[in-house]
């Protein structure tokens, strides 16, 4: 990365982080709602651990994987609405009049997602462990969980950027949020994939990438070190990131029609 590009990314990253930290309304729901759902599920579904083949006797430990993915979904909305606002207010045109490179803009904007991902992951982990969840992979596993959580958050963030650049409106970006929640609910969120006995649900969950993200988190919480599941989780996050960045870059070229 050249010095100029690094400087541009750094400046935009700084702005993105400042914006995230100065908008408690972005951080608080992303922390509170996943933890609320965790509490409800852990309390209401704990008998599921009696099912034959359930991988742990602590439903809290099993369910603790969900907030990491659910929280990451908030970054679709946060990164997307921030950029959509820049388009709506003309701030993007201001940036376009500088020698700013498109790559710097997108990378800088994702810095806010990194901060959000970090804050969320640490909070979920601390609350989950304090409530009695187990972490089979130990302290090193905690670091990997945080790293995976940040990766997933940034990956989903690129989808928010694409939506903002494609549609140019904050409302359109927010409209995507429920769609992404459908992905979460049609995954192995509440039960392990093997225990989803309804055929159509099992089929959908089997091809839903969210299932494998959840399994990567669960592998660290329940099994310890399952490198296959971990690698699959990181690979899916990287694939979403690559596709999202490609789509966002294409949309940026269309949106920034500067000569």
């Amino acid at each position, binding site marked *: 990365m050249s010095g*100029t590009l690094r*400087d*541009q990314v750094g*400046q*935009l990253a*700084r*702005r993105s982080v*400042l*914006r995230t930290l*100065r*908008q408690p309304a972005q951080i608080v729901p992303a922390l509170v709602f996943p933890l609320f759902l965790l509490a409800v599920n852990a309390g209401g579904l704990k008998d599921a651990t009696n099912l034959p083949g359930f991988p742990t006797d602590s439903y809290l430990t099993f369910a603790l994987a969900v907030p990491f993915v659910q929280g990451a979904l908030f970054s679709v909305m946060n990164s997307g609405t921030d950029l959509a606002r*820049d*388009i709506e*207010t*003309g*701030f*993007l*045109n*201001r*940036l*376009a*009049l*500088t*020698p*700013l490179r498109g790559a710097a803009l997108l990378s800088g904007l994702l810095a806010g997602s990194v901060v959000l991902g970090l804050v969320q992951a640490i909070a979920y982990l601390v609350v989950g462990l304090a409530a009695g969840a187990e972490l089979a992979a130990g302290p090193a596993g905690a670091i990997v969980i945080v790293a995976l959580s940040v990766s997933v958050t940034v990956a989903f963030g690129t989808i928010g950027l694409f939506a903002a*650049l*494609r*549609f*140019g409106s904050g409302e359109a970006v927010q409209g995507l949020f429920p769609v992404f929640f459908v992905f979460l609910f049609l995954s192995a969120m509440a039960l392990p994939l093997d225990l989803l006995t309804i055929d159509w649900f099992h089929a959908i969950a089997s091809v839903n990438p969210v299932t494998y993200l959840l399994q990567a988190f669960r592998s660290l919480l329940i099994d310890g070190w399952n490198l296959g599941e971990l690698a699959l989780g990181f690979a899916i996050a990287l694939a979403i990131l690559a596709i999202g960045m490609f789509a966002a870059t294409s*949309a940026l070229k*269309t*949106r*920034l*029609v*500067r*000569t």
Partner: protein
Amino acid sequence: MGEVERSGGIEAEALVREFKNGPRAVDGIDLEVAPGEIYGFLGPNGAGKSTTVLMLTTLLPPTSGSAHVAGFDVVSEGPRVRAAIGAALQEAALDPLLSGREHMRLQTALHGLGKAERQRRGDELLERVGLAYAADRKVGGYSGGMKRRLDLALALAHRPRILFLDEPTTGLDIQSRTALWEEVSRLAAEDGVTVFLTTQYLEEADALADRVGIIDHGHIVAEGTPAELKAEIGRPTVEAVPREEADRERMATVLAHFGERAGSTPRGVAVRLAGGESRLAEVVRALDAEGIAIEHLQLHAPSLDDVFLAKTGRSLEGAGDEEEAEAPAAEPITSA
């Protein structure tokens, strides 16, 4: 284009911008703005002012025609144009969550100023536009005038040779407007910055611009110094109000001998005075001869609104509202 190319002015030839499913927003305009000149681009809402600015600032490719800014082609040399210009586009595009100083830091950094110079330049510009006292406050708490002044400071961050200001004083109170006018005048006079200013305010074009171009429906309908344009119209307007309302029609008949109607006020009659102000005494005598008592008589020097009226058949005030109501929806200028 020699002179323009060497010294950094603006030139456009047959510049056109069409929108899909919309009107031809700019319809073949020719422009030449000399270095150091303040050029006022005057017209109602929807006339094509902002579209022209977007093309000249490289943010919107022209459909046809050509334009050179600071000697560089806006289509093929966009980055060089952008390096030479500063722009404060319509609506101050600021981040309400950042402070004035943070905006300056971002803008100077993106323009590639060195780290030490960023701080110095940012402080200097905030001081110049009178915002040093509010530099660390979030922009969300700034007034409209403060936002516009910060917008101007940001446009100047990299010492541009040419400055585009798109309706910079719209919505500002008279005090903020005057302060901005003074700063723009100073930039042109002392720093030699070429200023391309769009406005829908007659008094702004009159007070600031060395030359004015009047645009309507995408065409430049008149161009010259404010004095030249007014002289082109040549005739002042006389407005008379009868003491008795019943005399209004008779007064209109008498005044019709002195020139064509130039609109009317609720109680009076106005005509464009053929032969100029020297005929005012004749007007008074003619009304007196008809026994029409005058409550109020006023001579108006030609204004840019008269120029607009003469060229387009409409008054500038309210013209934009009509156009917005008539015009089909155009695609967003930066749409996907």
